[in-house]
């Protein structure tokens, strides 16, 4: 993929393959994405985003929270999704808690601002 066709800021093209699955608008959607993903896919996303996390944070820090250009906002949402991938990789070693049921009755009905969402 060329830089011109990437939906992410220049320099972050290698993360493009994760945009369609992991760029989501709310905390609850990101949690659902991780909870229903395959562990291999979560691990691939985790490895890729963790490797670029510092640079991505520095990039996003140029902008006021809640007022990023679309490409940077997508990158920021990948960073938000990184936390959910970390629950699977760093805590459980599987997509969600041992023996938990899914779909689950538990919902994050209000997440932190911005991009936390409200149900």
């Amino acid at each position, binding site marked *: 993929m060329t830089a011109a066709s990437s939906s992410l800021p220049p320099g972050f093209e290698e993360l493009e393959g994760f945009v369609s699955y992991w760029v989501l608008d709310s*905390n609850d959607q990101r949690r659902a994405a991780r909870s229903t993903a395959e562990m291999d896919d979560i691990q691939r996303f*985790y490895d890729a985003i963790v490797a670029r*996390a510092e640079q991505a944070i520095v990039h996003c820090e140029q902008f006021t929270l809640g007022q990023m250009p679309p490409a940077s906002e997508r990158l920021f949402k990948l960073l*938000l999704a990184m936390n959910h991938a*970390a629950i699977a990789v760093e*805590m459980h070693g599987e997509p969600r808690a041992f023996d938990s049921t899914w779909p689950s*009755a538990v919902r994050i009905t*209000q997440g932190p601002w911005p991009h936390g969402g409200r149900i």
Partner: protein
Amino acid sequence: MSAVIEKPAQTPNAGRHVIDEQSFTHAAGLSTGPVSVEPYRSPAFFELERERVFKRAWLCIGRVEQLPQENAYFVKDLEIWKASVLVTRGKNNKIRAFHNVCSHRGNLVVNQTCGVAERLVCRYHNWQYRNDGELIGVPDQKHFFDLDKKTCGLTPISCEVWEGFIFLNHQSKPEVSLAEFLGPFGTRYAGIPYFNLDETIVIQADFKANWKLIADAFAEPYHVPSLHPATLAPGFAHPEQNRYARPLSAMAHGIHRHFSAYGNPDYVPAPTSKVEQLVYVQDTGGVLGGDDSGNAAALTAHPAINPTKDRSWSADVTWIFPNFNIDYSTGGFWTHEFWPVAHNRTQWTLKIYIPKTMSIRHRLQLEHYACRWAEVVLEDVTNCERIQRGLESGAKDTMILQDAEMLIRHSLHVLDKWVKADHVADALS
């Protein structure tokens, strides 16, 4: 029907661990035998709870910040009362509560969950009420028969505020005031600084288990190492010093209660936990501390908080009878509302009070905090639905509680009193 089996304490067998005078259970004056599980599975007991507990106790339904300005209102459905409740902030900031029911033909007046309005209009025939409950407008009034608007206001609900928490009572003339109801708890826990009130993370679940099962899950840390091995155990237990996450203290305060949770003072994220290392501000004294904004010192200095002033403290869980928790940590506080719907169905709301997002890194930390919490409650909710099935099978008639589960024993003891007492004063004694 009884929530507590009246049996003398069993003599411990020789060789078994004998709980010494440090026993929280003995200190609270509770018996130590097995307790009945009937209150968790009996539809008849559930109806007793509805009439004798939830329709006589003061129930916390929110905080004053949910009414941020004059004329703000919010609506809350209380399934246990089969009622829709309207809470308003009127002139002079007076907070009032009403049944959200029109005097004309019983329609629900307000159908927004919250908003700002001095006048509230029932959309069936446009009867108009002021937010102090007065009926102020009736279209085509002249065709009614002797209509006296003054007697046709919204039906008020008794409403009192303690430390910013709004409590309602279903009795039209409550037998006891909120202060009497809170008793020693209300005085002991007065004056605690509430901070990080700017925003909330809200986690909710509507699930198939008795309301007390989820309340019980937050009343004891004994299950932390086993049910939450990855999400909580590293921060709230210690492989040598406190393997079973024994509480630092656990006490009854009248009909209410608290326990202080241990926090592993040596906790740091594992070297392999790259994201946790990246996003966490490691100065909060516990993995559930969302932020430390300097208010923590005032909180930890309060005599009610961490009463033994133990260094390895992480959080205090307080359980206000019957169905409300306020939990305090150095990172802020959170509340639980456990709302019964049926003997085997509960609607639960966890509100975590957080500071306004300050930076990109802070926002990432809050996301991690929210998703760790959601994972913890996923573990608890899944488990509660299993326990409900276990209890409803009829295989067991009792459960066996250890000392760290004292709050559950106290809850059932108080519940039993309320169910049996004809007067609230007797249930408080």
